[in-house]
């Protein structure tokens, strides 16, 4: 039997000694689509293709992949012409399978009946590799994308993020000379997207690639160059760092303006808006943030004495941090005086300059330095015992550790010997070396927790400027509602929404005024007209559906009402209302208590938390196996309530849209089932947020 040659597939990453990518040149003229453009990607570089929907981004990718034949096109990879149509001469079009152009779509399109490894082996096998060689190569790539442990899983049993990893490995296994990525992270939930972006950043290094995306995070992480398409033309093209620093096109400016530098919302899917007119969760979260965050920041910052903050911290059971609105600057330097970093002897370095083990420098021991008082100067030719943190006597410029001295203890000896010289400054903390007077001790936007308070006190900061505590008007609508604690009449219920959200808002650092209004437009209007003067945000629950008594919807004509692709919590409202002469943002949640709470967690809590600093904006997240199967509407992002059982698995509490508040009260985690997933089996991994 002949010796089996190793598979000659090119591992297309620089990390693996790859030959790098090929140059890509594409010209597309497609009059029906209004496209007329020309692009070039230099070998080994990644081009991010940005632009509004319909700008022609996908047409460019499909033309390069050979899946679309426009009126006039020329595609060249390296020295190979792949398409040459409509340029005079004989039309030439190479079929997709002969192009060595990889395509990673928004949908992974794995071969569901094959194993993960079988999927990745597909390209090498098609190229004629032996089963064994293909397998070795596939495992190598599965390692590279961090999916080796999935190798034996059936591809149809993967989560969206896992599937996209495998699709990436599969595309790379076919050794493409150019890799095209069409919104590769759009259908993946946010934590997976972050991980996958990191994987992409690694494997795209040195690969010629084109990434179509709407996410600035992708551009920052992946792109060497950026091209912006608008109306089928290239309106901006250049190195990514230059364009991000100084965008010229309106599209890129707008994109960067709405980018806060990080997707801080936790596992929220960045799915494109679905076709049925529902807003994606991520888009609604962005819209809420865009409207609410500026309003919360607009309040007058407060000047607070640090001692008052301390008293409050000591007096209240829970320390609710406040966010610094301006940098806090040190009044005294830290440390305030030169002091010793060690227990040892304060010396003048010059006195030890000639010390050797054979001829140690012998110095008389001076008076020990007491802490908390200014010591007398160190006479030349003496050494003074000094403890950690105690001030250095004038004249001393170094400390020798006691264990390096002879005797190596603070014995009541008259003379101490040193066997080696010591450089000036050794074990000395210089005054102001941590923070100089006037330096920033705690920067703006930092929540003031224990360590920040400590730093403020140490730096002698008397008062700080903190962000205001936003005043939120919480309005529960429903004629059946009775405020908490009042007796119930027939067919009446207590306002559970008001209670849940008031506590949740307060926990997120807001002051809350609650109101209950019946299903009558005048009543809602009256409550709004009567609102406290300093309300920064109005939150309503109920009355947002399309029913006959949807008071919020009927009263607030200027507010957007629509559906968000989430279950529960589909019907949502967002806009502004007039309170006296001011316009204040209004967020309308559905009336079902579970829906209202889930909506708050998804859309409002992160914004509030960032503004107030009372709690981290992101819930602690995790990933665990399901203890039971679940079904989810494929078009929606489903949020289930659950608990972690003793085995660390997620057990669900209540049904998909349960209205049972007792179930909600029992839940410790919110389980996220991203869009595109219709069913998860027992043992499948899910992302969750810890909610207590």
């Amino acid at each position, binding site marked *: 039997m002949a010796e089996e040659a190793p598979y000659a597939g090119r591992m297309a990453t620089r990390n693996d000694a790859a030959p790098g990518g090929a140059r890509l040149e594409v010209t597309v003229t497609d009059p029906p689509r209004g496209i007329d453009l020309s692009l070039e990607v230099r070998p080994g570089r990644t081009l991010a293709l940005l632009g509004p929907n319909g700008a022609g981004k996908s047409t460019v990718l499909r033309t390069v992949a050979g899946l679309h034949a426009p009126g006039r096109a020329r595609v060249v990879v390296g020295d190979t012409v792949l398409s040459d149509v409509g340029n005079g001469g004989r039309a030439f079009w190479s079929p*997709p*399978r002969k192009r060595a*152009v990889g395509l990673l*779509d928004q949908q992974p399109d794995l*071969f569901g009946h094959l194993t993960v490894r079988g999927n990745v082996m597909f390209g090498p096998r*098609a190229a004629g590799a032996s089963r064994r060689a293909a397998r070795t190569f596939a495992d190598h790539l599965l390692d590279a994308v961090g999916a080796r442990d999935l190798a034996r899983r059936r591809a149809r049993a993967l989560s969206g993020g896992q599937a996209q990893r495998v699709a990436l490995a599969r595309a790379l296994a076919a050794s493409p000379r150019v890799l095209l990525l069409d919104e590769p992270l759009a259908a993946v939930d946010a934590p997976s997207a972050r991980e996958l972006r990191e994987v992409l950043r690694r494997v795209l290094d040195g690969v010629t690639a084109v990434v179509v995306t709407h996410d600035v995070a992708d551009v920052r992480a992946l792109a060497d160059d950026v091209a912006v398409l608008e109306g089928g033309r290239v309106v901006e093209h250049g190195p990514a760092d230059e364009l991000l620093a100084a965008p010229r096109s309106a599209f890129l400016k707008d994109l960067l303006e709405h980018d806060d530098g990080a997707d801080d919302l936790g596992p929220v899917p960045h799915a494109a808006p679905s076709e049925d007119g529902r807003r994606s969760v991520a888009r609604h979260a962005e819209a809420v943030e865009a409207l609410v965050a500026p309003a919360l920041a607009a309040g007058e910052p407060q000047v607070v004495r640090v001692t008052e903050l301390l008293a409050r911290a000591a007096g209240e059971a829970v320390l609710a941090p406040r966010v610094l609105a301006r940098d806090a600057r040190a009044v005294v330097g830290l440390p305030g005086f030169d002091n010793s970093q060690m227990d040892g002897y304060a010396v003048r370095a010059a006195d030890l300059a000639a010390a050797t083990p054979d001829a140690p420098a012998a110095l008389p021991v001076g008076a020990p330095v007491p802490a908390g008082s200014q010591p007398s100067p160190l006479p030349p030719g003496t050494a003074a015992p000094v403890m950690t943190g105690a001030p250095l006597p004038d004249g001393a410029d170094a400390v020798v550790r006691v264990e390096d001295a002879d005797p190596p203890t603070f014995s009541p000896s008259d003379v101490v010997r040193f066997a080696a010289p010591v450089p000036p400054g050794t074990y000395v903390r210089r005054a102001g070396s941590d923070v100089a007077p006037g330096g920033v001790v705690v920067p703006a936007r930092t929540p003031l927790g224990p360590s920040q308070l400590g730093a403020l006190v140490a730096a002698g900061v008397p008062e700080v400027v903190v962000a205001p505590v936003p005043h939120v008007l919480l309005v529960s609508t429903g004629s059946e509602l009775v405020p908490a604690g009042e007796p119930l009449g027939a067919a009446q219920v207590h306002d559970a929404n008001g209670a849940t959200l008031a506590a949740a808002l307060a926990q997120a650092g807001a002051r809350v005024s609650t109101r209950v209004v019946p299903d009558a437009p005048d009543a809602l209007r009256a409550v709004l007209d009567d609102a406290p003067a300093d309300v920064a945000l109005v939150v309503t629950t109920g009355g947002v559906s399309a029913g006959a008594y949807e008071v919020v919807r009927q009263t607030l004509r200027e507010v957007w009402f629509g559906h968000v692709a989430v279950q529960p919590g589909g019907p949502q409202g967002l806009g502004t209302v007039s309170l006296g002469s001011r316009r204040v943002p209004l967020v309308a949640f559905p009336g079902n208590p579970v829906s209202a709470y889930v909506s708050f967690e998804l859309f409002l809590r992160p914004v509030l938390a960032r503004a107030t600093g009372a709690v981290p904006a992101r819930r602690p997240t995790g990933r665990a196996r399901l203890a039971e199967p679940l079904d989810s509407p*494929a078009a929606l992002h489903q949020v289930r309530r659950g608990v972690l059982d003793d085995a660390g698995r997620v057990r669900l509490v209540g049904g998909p849209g349960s209205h049972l508040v007792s179930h909600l009260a029992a839940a410790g985690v919110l389980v996220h089932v991203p869009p595109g997933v219709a069913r998860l089996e027992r043992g499948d991994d899910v992302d969750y947020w810890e909610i207590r």
Partner: protein
Amino acid sequence: MRRSPVTAPVGDVVPGWVAAVAVVGATFVVVPVVVLGARADWAHLPTLVTGAAALDALGLSLWTAVASTLACVALGVPLALVLARTSFPGHGTLRAVVLLPLVLPPVVSGLALLATLGRRGPVGGLLDDLGLGVAFTTTAVVIAHTYVSLPFLVLSVEGALRVAGARGELAAATLGASANRTFWVVTLPAVAPALAGGALLAFARSLGEFGATLTFAGSLQGVTRTLPIEIYLLRETDPDAAVALSMLLVVAALVVVTAVHSAGGTRGLRTALGRPRG
């Protein structure tokens, strides 16, 4: 991701009156079979169904049904793929024609086959001259079965192919796979459940075939007389035996239907039955 079937207790999703009509419908289907079973002479059933003529008919029915099912798979999968994945002038017409036996009375199908493949037919005459005449042979039975069963398999597989979409095949192409490799490794496995379901439907249709077979292949014991024809003939002379053989077919049909459900072919069957014919 798998989509799980929606199930709910009656009353939540299904209106009460719909459930009531459904009960009537089920009764309508089940009662005649039960009554037939009650009529059967169970004590003499073993002797009635083990007569030479009956055994001949049963054996012939089974193997011709298997043979025609294989023929349906061999012809139907390529037809389904072409119908699902290509477009050409006359595509719609071809589709209609392929599905024609589904709506034609089987006797008409038999006549059409006879006209073509019979001794005086254009193709049959030619075959006869070569000594390969098929009229009134067991081969004719298989041909008749295949003719009427083919649409079931084509419908099932084509439906599944359309549902699956061509994205997997496009992915295979960008990975460098030839059309042939894509067919065997990607396309065919993806529709395997539908193929199994369609094949079982074709088998069941073949097993019950009567009109086209009688017209085209005749009724020669051991050669072309299948179980349904035997039952039809016995109905006049020996009603007890006819009922007994009928019970045999009922059992065979139940076995097939159960097999479809338990062999994971439910999805295929559902696809096959759930697709509109147009």
